């Protein structure tokens, strides 16, 4: 079972009386891109928060990269190679693009402990190179990102996670607030992840995008995983009928 990157068993989260997530069984294979879809409040974000350890789960087990894990937060998850782009961005508004991309793993020119001299040129060049590869257009990299549009900021956040991620990247509605052009840029970044063989979990309401980008689609409904659909064997209408509860797979586990 070495090609299973992430696996959950009976993952459950209750907020008091709210059963946001119930007994979720889930598997993600090496290199696989999976989408999670479902109505508002279906439990998608809750699922993501349990995996990355933002919240502590009520019940269930998680395996990541061959061992059972219990992350204490996004930093812990990151150190194991799991990256998450949250609905609210984790960027430093007063820093420019290279500083944000390299925050916490700066390139050093000369090591002096906390007073190490930064290699600003190298970080800027790498940023330019990386953004060019993904097709993200940002007019001036040296401006604080505060002055950028929501879409540009989102692109920076995603590019940042994409370059950090080594084993898995999770994105919760990365294009929800973006225009057409910016959505296309984010989708480009996602395709480069596929080329690099990095697995992805993408939470999205955009069914066109989901069918375009991923291999497999997991449907959440009222805190339960109700379907696992191969991209080639489904279409928009099919997915919608699972989301709305018209159809249901009676398998308890979401993996095929």
């Amino acid at each position, binding site marked *: 079972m070495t090609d299973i990157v992430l696996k959950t068993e009976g993952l459950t989260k209750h907020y008091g009386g709210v059963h946001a997530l119930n007994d979720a069984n889930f598997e993600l294979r090496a290199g696989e891109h999976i989408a999670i879809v479902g109505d508002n409040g279906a439990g998608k974000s809750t699922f993501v928060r349990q995996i990355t350890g933002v919240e502590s789960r009520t019940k269930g087990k998680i395996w990541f990269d061959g061992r059972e894990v219990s992350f204490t*937060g*996004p*930093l812990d998850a*990151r*150190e194991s190679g799991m990256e998450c782009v949250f609905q609210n*961005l*984790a*960027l*430093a*508004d*007063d*820093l420019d693009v290279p*500083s944000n991309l390299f*925050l*916490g*793993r*700066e390139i*050093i020119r000369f090591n*002096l402990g*906390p*007073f*190490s*001299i*930064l290699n*600003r040129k190298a970080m800027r060049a790498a940023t330019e190179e990386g953004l060019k590869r993904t097709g993200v*257009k940002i*007019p*001036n990299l*040296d*401006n604080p990102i*505060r*002055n*950028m*549009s929501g*879409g*540009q900021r989102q692109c920076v956040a995603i590019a940042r996670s994409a370059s950090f991620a080594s084993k898995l990247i999770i994105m919760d509605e990365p294009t929800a607030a973006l*225009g057409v*052009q*910016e959505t296309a840029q984010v989708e480009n970044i996602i395709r480069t992840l596929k080329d690099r063989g990095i697995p992805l979990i993408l939470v999205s309401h955009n069914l066109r995008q989901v069918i375009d980008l991923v291999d497999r689609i997991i449907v959440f409904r009222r805190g339960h995983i109700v379907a696992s659909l191969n991209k080639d064997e489904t279409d928009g209408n099919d997915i919608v009928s699972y989301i709305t509860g018209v159809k249901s797979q009676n398998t308890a586990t979401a993996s095929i």
Partner: protein
Amino acid sequence: MTAAMAPRAQSRARPPELNIFLALVLITLVFELLNRWQGGSFLFNTRDNVPGLFNQARLQIIILQVSITGIIAIGVTQVIIIGGIDLSSGSIVGATAMISMSFAQVALVNGNPNPKAIFGPELMDLPVIVPILVGLACGIFAGLINGLLIAYTKIPPFIATLGMMVSARGVAKWWSNGNPISFPTDSFGALSNGDFLGWITFGALPGQGLNPVLLFIALAALFQLALTYTLYGKRCYAIGSNEEAARISGINVARHKVLVYAIAGSLAAFAALVLCSKNLTAQSGMGVMYELDAIAMAVIGGVSLSGGRGSIIGTVIGALIFGVIISGFTSIRLDAYYQEMVKGAIIVGAVVLDQWRQRRRALEG
């Protein structure tokens, strides 16, 4: 990305320091005009019996005053950049001055035992490095306590440093039961009153008494470089800008905060050493209200009280503005009481300006 946004995003924003510098020029000009109107001059020498183009005495007072509080403001700037505040620096100056001065005393004054002696003769006539190290240790110790309280107990910086402000002032008074400590060694007095500039330039550039200014410039340059070119600076801005993002990025936020507050404490200690060397005495009331002057200098210099923005260069210009305004009021013979009132208004005004800048930025962003 709308078409309307593109041009602004493309042009690199004008550095805010430039605006502050223009404000400095403008304010200086206003005082020059006010002085001219009264028949004198703010900057220039109008007396026939004194040589020189500039009003040497006034300029010297401005830069000396600015230098000592300015050294504190360098530390305060870094604290504010990480989103904190330091109300204790003035009291740290007081406590540090008292403690380090007692290690700088001479045993004999005009052949008689030192009338202000704190310790016995075995702790007198010590090499100058002793009071310097003792002073810096005091400042760092106080700063460490500030930092540890703020980073690990989640007490708001305002409260933690307010506590330190009261306690350190208590230490300053308790140390010698409120008595001033005087009669330092010559080498200690020379720290501020000597002529380092003349010494390293073999007398080409005499600068008797300008050592505090040199120290201020050196420390300002050092920390400006650190903030711009090192990991330390990057982390300061990141933490002030978005502490959560910094933490998720793997920055040890708590440890960095402790470091910044300790640095601020050490800078307050530098100011204390300079001050009591210059005055040749230490009093428990030294440095009262300096913390507010230092904060005002930083805020006038464009350091945002909400963190993440500002620079040492800005603070240095802010300090000059502060100095020009204060001595400007003296030059037009405004009464000292009015000066204090105006000083209060400047501090509040600087904060209002900061919030206005933020609101404008929010509207633009």
